[in-house]
């Protein structure tokens, strides 16, 4: 099962990013293989619709769980429709590796 964690950088020691649609990077963690992969968010500087475009991308990637600081209204609706689990953490002190350690 794939989990996406919004990240401010492309390394596991990077800080967690509280934004979803405009997060700098996405960390894709696969808990069956233990694979960690970073994908740059091309919508980070989009004028509008970042949340929608990012949600569509998550569906494409077949992600089942997303960990972020907040989800916009449109993103929430879309993710709910596709049965993707949303997790909100409001602590930006976490690094990506802290979060991966928690969900393992």
């Amino acid at each position, binding site marked *: 099962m794939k989990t996406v964690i919004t990240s401010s950088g492309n390394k596991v020691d990077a800080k967690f990013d*509280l934004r979803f649609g405009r997060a700098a990077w996405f960390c894709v963690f696969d808990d069956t293989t233990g694979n960690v992969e970073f994908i740059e968010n091309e919508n980070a500087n989009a004028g509008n619709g970042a949340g929608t475009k990012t949600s569509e991308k998550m569906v494409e990637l077949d992600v089942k*769980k997303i*960990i972020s600081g*907040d989800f916009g*209204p*449109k993103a*929430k*609706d879309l993710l*709910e429709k596709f*049965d*993707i*689990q*949303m*997790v*909100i*953490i*409001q*602590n930006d002190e976490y690094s990506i590796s802290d*979060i991966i350690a*928690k*969900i393992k």
Partner: protein
Amino acid sequence: MPRRRRLRKVVAPPAFKGYRPYGANNINNEPVELLYEEYEAIKLADYEMLNHLEAAELMGVSRPTFARIYESARRKIAKALVETKEIKTVYGHAWLDKNWFNCKDCHAIFTIPKTLTEQVCALCSSKNIEPINK
């Protein structure tokens, strides 16, 4: 960057997508966007007759914030009536009561989609979770 908005709790979203005036000669076609939390504020204060403090507690915001949401809601409705505008409901900064859970161990807030059967925390797998409502 301004402080992020705290999410307002909405027990049930409005059962309609909007309202449209009829019998008007020229409907001003730019709709007024009523947010879910504004609908909720009107419902709690004017339909369920709660006072602002009780209503604010139910929505998980402070009383002054509740008053602001309520005032904005009233102004939007007044504007729609006077200027014969359509009212559309939009999501706003709400979270819906039934789908969200809070983990008492790691304080994460998460949803449990209907495809999952296990009721555990999405982050730390703790069973010590509760639906967010009072």
